[in-house]
């Protein structure tokens, strides 16, 4: 039978990670489903399990001048209701799961799961989010876009734990997240889009946009966004056909039970078009 570890403090948790090979479980909303064989069957973890949701130190949300820090065991509902958290991310969380899921699921869990369809990842990529990772001997901060290395793959060593999600504070004129799914709640996205921009005197000071569920991970291309910064809104709108072409190769979705690649690509590009055409 597999062993379960249930630490109550971070120190205790990091010691366990240092000495054992374990699967880490926070809220459990994905892990329990992924590790059961069939409805009503006991959960069958194949490796030892580390339950981190009783660690109070990881449930804090606070800020300094530059960043908002979100502990990795904060529930999505707590994050959604906290005014320190950027509105774009709070609005996105409202479209994730349902109240029952949001009371237990975590943001760090959405990162650790690294699903191509993870909704929170899209706004977090836009906001240049960082991940704080700790082991017993070390702390490091990694950009989220580098931390996620592929489909369900992250840059986390066996002795490490995600301890914080760190979001730079930025100001912008307008921004939104758009999810395309079959049901308002509890739906896994067919695709998603997030965009934000900042305008001053008719000139774009910043523009960011990203797509979810259309590649192995979130698609965002900062170097292309930079081509638009400093241009007048009217100039950017005239470039729309060219901008859509930039993503010809990056948007390469798959066919699966939720949607097909033609639909995903077509709607992603329509959402980008609508975002650019509505800049004001």
């Amino acid at each position, binding site marked *: *039978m*597999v062993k*379960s570890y*249930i630490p109550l403090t971070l120190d205790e948790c990091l010691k366990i990670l240092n000495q054992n090979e374990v699967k880490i*479980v926070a*809220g*459990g*909303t994905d*892990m*329990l*489903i992924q590790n*059961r064989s069939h*409805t*009503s069957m*006991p*959960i069958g*973890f194949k490796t030892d*399990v580390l*339950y981190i*949701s*009783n660690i109070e130190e990881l449930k804090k949300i606070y800020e300094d001048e530059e960043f908002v820090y979100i502990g990795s065991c904060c529930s999505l*509902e707590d994050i959604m209701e906290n005014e320190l958290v950027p509105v774009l991310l709070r609005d996105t969380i*409202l479209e994730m*799961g*349902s*109240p*029952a*899921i949001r*009371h*237990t699921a975590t943001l760090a869990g959405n990162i650790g799961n690294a699903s191509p369809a993870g909704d929170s990842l899209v706004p977090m990529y836009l906001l240049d989010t960082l991940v704080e990772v700790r082991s017993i001997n070390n702390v490091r901060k990694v950009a989220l876009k580098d931390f996620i290395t592929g489909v369900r793959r992250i840059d986390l060593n066996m002795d490490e734990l995600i301890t914080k999600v760190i979001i730079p504070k930025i100001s912008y004129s307008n921004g939104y997240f758009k999810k395309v799914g079959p049901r*308002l*709640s*509890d739906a896994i996205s067919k695709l998603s889009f997030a965009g934000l921009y900042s305008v001053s005197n008719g000139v774009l000071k910043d523009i960011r946009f990203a797509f979810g569920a259309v590649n192995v991970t979130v698609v965002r291309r900062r170097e292309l966004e930079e081509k638009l910064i400093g241009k007048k809104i009217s100039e950017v709108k005239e470039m729309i056909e060219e901008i859509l072409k930039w993503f010809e190769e990056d948007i390469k979705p798959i066919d699966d039970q939720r949607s097909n690649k033609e639909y995903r690509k077509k709607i992603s590009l329509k959402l980008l078009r609508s975002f650019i055409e509505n800049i004001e």
Partner: protein
Amino acid sequence: MAKIKFKLNGEFQEIYTNPSRRLLDVLRDDFNLTGPKEGCGEGECGACAVLMNGEIVNSCSVPFANVINKEIITIEGFSKTKRYEVIKDAFAEAGGVQCGFCTPGMIIATESLLNKNPNPTDFEIKIGLSGNLCRCTGYNLIIEAVKIAAKEGEGLW
């Protein structure tokens, strides 16, 4: 295996069990509380809903390890409260119950919503119930029931 202490429907409990069991199975098999039901078994239907520290959770996707020192209230425990009486009467008045399979979860969702927001708008009610599926009523009657409960139970939440 681990010894896990928690509060269930107002009483302290301590059981020695596998922490990877689902809260739903512990409630139904060890405590014979069959109000929470397994519908989808993957967190999408809300039939297994219970209150954890006053907030709705799906007991099919909560590992028992996460229940340490928490307070769990099932529909059985909640049915001893005045708030339950108000919600029950509202569901009866609106006709928000047909086959009844989703009803324990719907009532838990209503309590969790009103506890946070005693005067919800229509949109807020829809969000509050959005994780609970009902295949009989078409939802409008349940939304109506929540409105009646909020009105009749004014001051209770």
